[in-house]
């Protein structure tokens, strides 16, 4: 026990004396959560649009008012001729142009069919899509309010309700994702680097020629990072609750237990990486390429797994982050208990056991 405490003490000296690792440990989680929360967002707000109103009637004015009254759009300017549309897009500030046809009201009443052209700048396809959906929604809304019974025909009116995230806040999606990335990064990359560092500077040679057992070395190396990762998880959750008003409907205790489980899985992966790499640089490359990219791309954090091609869907199953994201989303947003996420939890436990088993087997008691 004394040996263990001595070892852990030494690890903490290493961590606190290395400014770079301190920054990765504590600066990065905060920076990432704020970045993802504020800057990277799928919501649109105050999008600049231009209007080309060729009929200039009461109806079109009403629609324009409705659009400018919403918080989503800002009417940047009114243009007079179609040839201006391209010029205005090229300037870059305006993201969409609404083009009302001539005799808009007349067509609406006599032909029951009036046309508005919505032109969006699709250099950013996601935003363009969102803009056109929002405009559509506003127009439908207007139509519903204004049309007289004489115009009403048969129609199916879908009433959608977005459960668990009614306002479709992207922060609800990013917080679980960022938490996963950070825990993975801190746990797997930092441990694999700290173990390979001992190999690189040659101290591993002395540790091997000492009565320390392999598991004592590994546990001693990993322990500080469990502790620091838990602190990180707490920081992330507190930040997201207080700054982004992210709800936690489920139990904090379950959330904590699942987080610790994921941390252990990631640490085990880190140990595994350190057993196959000889230098810190290799360990870092493997962690970044082999862990971070799949976590970002294949875990369902950014891109929905169901819309991936089948081979990628299959691969996504072996990524621990996928299961962790499912679990914490369920716990935080749906407020479910263990009875709904036991399958994912079991998968994570299985992965942790497998990784630890393989790394204990692969851990070298000699130099070769």
């Amino acid at each position, binding site marked *: 026990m004394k*040996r263990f405490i001595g*070892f852990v003490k030494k690890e903490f000296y290493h961590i606190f*004396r290395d400014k770079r690792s301190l920054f990765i440990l504590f600066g990065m989680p905060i920076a990432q959560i704020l970045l993802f929360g504020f800057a990277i967002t799928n919501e649109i707000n105050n999008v600049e649009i231009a209007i080309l109103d060729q009929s200039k009637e009461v109806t079109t004015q009403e629609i324009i008012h409705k659009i400018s009254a919403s918080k989503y759009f800002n009417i940047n300017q009114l243009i007079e001729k179609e040839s201006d549309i391209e010029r205005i897009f090229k300037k870059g500030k305006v993201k969409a142009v609404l083009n009302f046809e001539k005799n808009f009201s007349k067509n609406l009443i006599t032909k029951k069919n009036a046309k508005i052209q919505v032109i969006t700048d699709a250099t950013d396809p996601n935003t363009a899509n969102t803009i056109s959906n929002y405009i559509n929604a506003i127009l439908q809304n207007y139509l519903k309010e204004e049309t007289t019974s004489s115009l009403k025909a048969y129609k199916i009116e879908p009433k959608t309700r977005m459960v668990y995230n009614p306002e479709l806040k992207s922060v609800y999606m990013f917080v679980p994702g960022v938490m996963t990335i950070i825990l993975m990064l801190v746990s797997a990359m930092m441990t694999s680097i700290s173990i390979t560092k001992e190999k690189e500077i040659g101290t591993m040679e002395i540790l091997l*020629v000492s009565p320390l057992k392999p598991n004592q070395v590994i546990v001693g190396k990993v322990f500080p990072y469990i502790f620091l990762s838990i602190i990180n998880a707490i920081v992330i959750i507190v930040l997201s609750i207080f700054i982004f008003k992210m709800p936690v409907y489920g139990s904090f205790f379950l959330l904590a237990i699942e987080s610790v489980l994921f941390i252990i899985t990631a640490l085990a992966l880190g140990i595994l990486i350190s057993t196959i790499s000889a230098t810190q640089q290799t360990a870092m490359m493997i962690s970044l390429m082999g862990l971070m990219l799949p976590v970002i791309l294949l875990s369902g954090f950014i891109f929905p797994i169901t819309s991936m091609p089948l081979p990628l869907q299959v691969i996504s199953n072996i990524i621990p982050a996928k299961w962790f994201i499912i679990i914490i989303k369920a716990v935080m947003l749906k407020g479910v208990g263990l009875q709904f996420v036991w399958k994912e939890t079991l998968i994570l436990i299985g992965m942790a056991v497998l990784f630890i088993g393989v790394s204990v087997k692969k851990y070298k008691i000699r130099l070769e």
Partner: protein
Amino acid sequence: MSISIVNVSKSYNKVNALKNISFDVKPGELFGLIGPDGAGKTTLFRILTTLLVANEGVVKVAGFDVVTDYKNIRKCVGYMPGKFSLYQDLTVEENLMFFATIFGTTIEENYDLIKEIYIQIAPFKDRRAGKLSGGMKQKLALCCALIHKPKVLFLDEPTTGVDPVSRKEFWEMLKRLQDKNITILVSTPYMDEAALCDRIALIQDGNILEVDTPKAIVKHYTKQIYNVSANNMYQLINYLKEYPFSHSVYPFGEFVHYTDTRTNFNSNELKTYLRSKDLSNLKIDKTIATIEDTFMELAK
């Protein structure tokens, strides 16, 4: 025997680092492993410290087999690798404390063993190990290797890259440790340090050339050696090598060590030859063989 090595061979990817070597180190001995870089010294150290497994042969350290009983060996040996291998971001005291703890002891418990060495670095005990000078680093590394009172101490090139004064001090410390009944195996590429050992093994290209006391090894050298000097060292070496009766020519400090193939060597004859080659300030004197001469002769 403290260390016994019997018919040990080791190869890495077709390179034979050690070729069927055998020797013993007696308890309490200060044993030197002398050889140039790449001779196989570090490989042998790693086999002895259980870090590598030999392809062939049997090795015992402190009575334990290095393969089957490696755990016991790791408890009772001290190892100082050739590369400085302490934690550079830990202070002198923290390093020493860490190594004491992992060996299940305390600095106080074995303080008399390291006292003489530690008092020299004690003024810097709050300094990070990475900021120490070369000699200080080696003293600290020695303290760390000694802190658990090992039975056998392995020092792989402890004085490489250390200034001459620190080297001398370091060897004095080793001599004192010997009195405390610790067997020491030390490797060095410096021939002058060899003379300070009880016994030495000369190693080259994975072969042991000779194992004996430094004095006896020098006696194996039967040829008379001459110190030759002249105004132009480089030309002198070239002309000596061209001399039909030359046996060996090695630069040695300010002199050239020369041996002749004949038994009835006449120094005046050589002088005349060298003068004819436009060399001046010629001096030729008899001298006694050193370990380096023996090594060169054996390594031929």
